[in-house]
């Protein structure tokens, strides 16, 4: 058996209590939601928190409020998010993304907040302790473990790099950023609200801008009119279980003539933060083949995947282009047949029935 290292477990009964505990105990305490990211990481000694602050008792984090837009509690399971009937069709990218995380059992356990705060991933990091020890721990070594002999230093992906390039592999993050979502962060000082895109840093170790003593409590979807539509495409080796190794969240607002009024396109799972593309070139014109091709070509450069996930790097780069183009073609109305095979596997599950 691979055992979870010992920890002290605290079960606060309110968000305020949880914030107070964090204020007193960070950095040795860590929030614990569904545990589907933390438990495997703890078993492999990647993360060894001394204190877990369990969020299961915080019912407020599982509420959904219609307040113009929609506010989703960070403690909702991904299954509940994927089945949330109040998410409008225009924002189905979130339903698609949540519905494609891992497996049904993991979606029953894993939460929206945990998905947004998921640890970054790397082929040299998501390995057991002995494996990582054998090749020499990289920069993203565990803090709490007694490994004084560890030479924190070499990144096995980019040895000359001053930073870690572990990949942000959250499915819901690129979809929600494309939808223009905001989040609420609560600490002992009070609450602040920021655009979700600002939660992420381009650094595989310090990948969140939120302070460790802040809880993510809510995700806010903006109110949208019927001119908006959205989608989420995910590349993974198998149609279940696997993390994304390239993904695209896209949302556009089209006028009656198909002219783009606004657009947001985000690439996930290529680098340490979701990559928000500059979509201004798409605005003011229809989504013609030429406009889409030019935009997709330009997307490859900022995406810049590194060779630390599944699949060959050069192929992932090619898929970035194909997926950006495919997602935009889907949004302009191309059918599954027109989109071809790549699209059918990328956006396979379209749970439209779940949308209002």
């Amino acid at each position, binding site marked *: 058996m691979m055992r979870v290292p010992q920890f002290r477990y605290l079960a606060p009964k309110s968000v305020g209590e949880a914030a107070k505990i964090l204020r007193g105990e960070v950095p040795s305490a860590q929030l614990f939601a569904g545990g*589907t990211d933390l438990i495997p990481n703890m078993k492999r000694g990647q993360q060894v928190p001394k204190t877990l602050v369990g969020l299961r008792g915080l019912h407020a984090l599982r509420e959904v409020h219609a307040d113009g837009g929609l506010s989703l509690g960070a403690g909702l399971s991904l299954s509940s998010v994927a089945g949330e009937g109040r998410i409008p069709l225009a924002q189905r990218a979130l339903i698609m993304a949540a519905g494609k995380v891992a497996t049904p059992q993991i979606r029953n356990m894993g939460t929206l907040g945990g998905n947004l705060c998921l640890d970054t991933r790397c082929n040299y990091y998501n390995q057991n302790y002995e494996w990582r020890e054998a090749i020499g721990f990289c920069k993203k070594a565990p803090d709490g473990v007694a490994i004084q002999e560890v030479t924190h230093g070499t990144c096995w992906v980019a040895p000359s790099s001053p930073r870690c390039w572990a990949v942000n592999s959250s499915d819901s993050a690129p979809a929600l950023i494309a939808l223009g979502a905001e989040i609420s962060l609560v600490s002992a000082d009070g609450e602040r609200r920021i655009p979700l895109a600002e939660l992420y840093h381009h650094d595989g170790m310090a990948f969140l801008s939120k302070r460790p003593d802040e809880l993510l409590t809510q995700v806010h979807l903006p109110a949208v009119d019927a001119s908006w539509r959205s989608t989420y495409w995910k590349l993974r080796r198998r149609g279940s279980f696997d993390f994304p190794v390239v993904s695209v969240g896209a949302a556009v607002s089209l006028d009656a003539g198909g002219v783009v009024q606004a657009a947001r396109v985000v690439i996930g799972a290529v680098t340490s933060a979701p990559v928000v593309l500059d979509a201004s070139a798409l605005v003011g014109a229809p989504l013609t083949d030429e406009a889409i091709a030019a935009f997709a070509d330009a997307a490859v450069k900022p995406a810049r995947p590194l060779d630390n996930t599944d699949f060959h790097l050069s192929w992932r780069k090619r898929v970035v282009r194909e997926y950006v183009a495919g997602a935009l073609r889907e949004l302009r109305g191309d059918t599954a047949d027109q989109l071809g095979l790549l699209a059918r596997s990328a956006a396979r*599950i379209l749970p439209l029935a779940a949308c209002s």
Partner: protein
Amino acid sequence: MTEEIAGDQKVMGRFRVNGDEHHVAYAPHKTLLEVLREDLDLPGTKHGCELGECGACAVLVDGVPTLSCLLLGLEATEREVLTVEGLADDARLHPLQAAFADLGGSQCGYCTPGVLVTAKALLDETPKPTREQIQEALAGNLCRCTGYLQIFEAVEAAAEECAP
């Protein structure tokens, strides 16, 4: 008030498994899988990868398919747990178990406990599932032996049996 469980000593917990109540001492860093197999003497639930990557350890918690290798025991107390040992009605197999035996849905059997309880949750919610719904519900359960076809057919046969 915040509840606290210290990490370094065994604690007492009340587990409700297959309708029985167990009051046992267990180490609080154990997963439900470890508590079931090591403290409650219920080895029907299998340990495969122990990392969420296979589905062998699936059980139902309050009716919901859950990976017992990723759920802390201390978060499973006072909840309704169903394992494969709870499927049969005394000597009478559950229709899913009978169909799996008849139709080759189980070969080496290692994945079977997790598949059976996950399929039971599907049939409880959707008595007449389509093939696609069965595939989707079992997408988190790996099987190295059957090639899945017999599993899907066995679930369909059991669905017939349960709701003719």
